[in-house]
């Protein structure tokens, strides 16, 4: 059986995505796989908010600046988590529609496993609540691992030598 060689974890600043990153670090270590962490600055959503007049132009720029800082901070944090376990990762941030950026990177880097945080446990039938990670999960061409149970994952990460 072949094992994953290239793993991608999507980081968005939520605790769920950090838990996913810890799990991805464990997997990359077990399988000696390359690990890439991706943060997408959701410029598409910000453009929509500007069009809907929920955002002012200067507010959009402020949020974009904040998200650039978030991207750096969270990717650095995941990098630190990996370094603690002797792993070197690739950090990437991009701009656009989250699920499209994930799909593009999966294809461009020939990723064979996408790791994402736990999805909403509430399944609304309204399309408006179809979140970006879930959309990516349904449309990427590779296998997807949805990480759950923060405490167990933390234990697994901590026990990793």
């Amino acid at each position, binding site marked *: 059986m072949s094992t994953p060689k290239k793993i991608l974890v999507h980081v*968005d*600043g*939520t605790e*769920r995505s950090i838990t996913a990153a810890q799990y991805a670090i464990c997997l990359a270590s077990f399988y000696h796989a390359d690990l890439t962490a991706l*943060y997408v*600055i*959701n410029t598409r*959503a*910000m453009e*929509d*908010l500007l069009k*809907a*007049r*929920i*955002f*002012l132009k200067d*507010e959009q720029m402020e*949020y974009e600046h*904040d*998200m650039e*800082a*978030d991207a750096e*901070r969270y990717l650095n944090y995941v990098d630190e988590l990996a370094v603690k376990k002797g792993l070197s990762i690739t950090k990437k941030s991009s701009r656009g529609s*989250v699920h499209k950026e994930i799909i593009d990177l999966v294809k461009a880097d020939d990723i064979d496993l996408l790791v994402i945080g736990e*999805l*909403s*446990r*509430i399944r*609304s*039938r*309204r*399309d*408006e*609540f*179809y*979140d*970006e990670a*879930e959309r990516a999960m349904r449309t990427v061409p590779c296998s997807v691992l949805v990480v759950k149970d923060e405490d167990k994952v933390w234990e697994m990460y901590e026990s990793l030598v």
Partner: protein
Amino acid sequence: MSLIDLVVEDIVKIPMTSNDKPDVLRELVQTLKDAGQIDDFDAVLQAVQEREDKLSTGLENGIAVPHGKTAAVTRLKLAIGIAPNGIDFDAMDKNPSKLFFLLVAPPDQSGPHVEALAEIAKLGQSRAFCKALVNADDAKEVVDLMKGE
């Protein structure tokens, strides 16, 4: 994280009792306080008030989306207010606002904040859905409608 994760009956105020814009903001923040979602009422109110001072978040079709960033919260917080008779919120179409979505986020979680606001923007495009929310009888019906049940 999806907006739907934040929708519970405790954060829904229906009907709202406010008569003007300052009271609406206070009532929504108080709803979060009463639901145990926030501790610092004043800091949260100040965050949304500062944004409103720049330009009203009262949109068209009776929807308003007051929002702000504050370190007084550690996670994204949502309150929903429904005023079937409408309240003057200085909306862009000058009509009374009936449906209020208040969002407050910590400064270091802009990503989830933006995505939640985008979900509200999409919801607001459905006039039939907004009408159903405005005509809801109670918080349970609002939650059920949001979940699509």
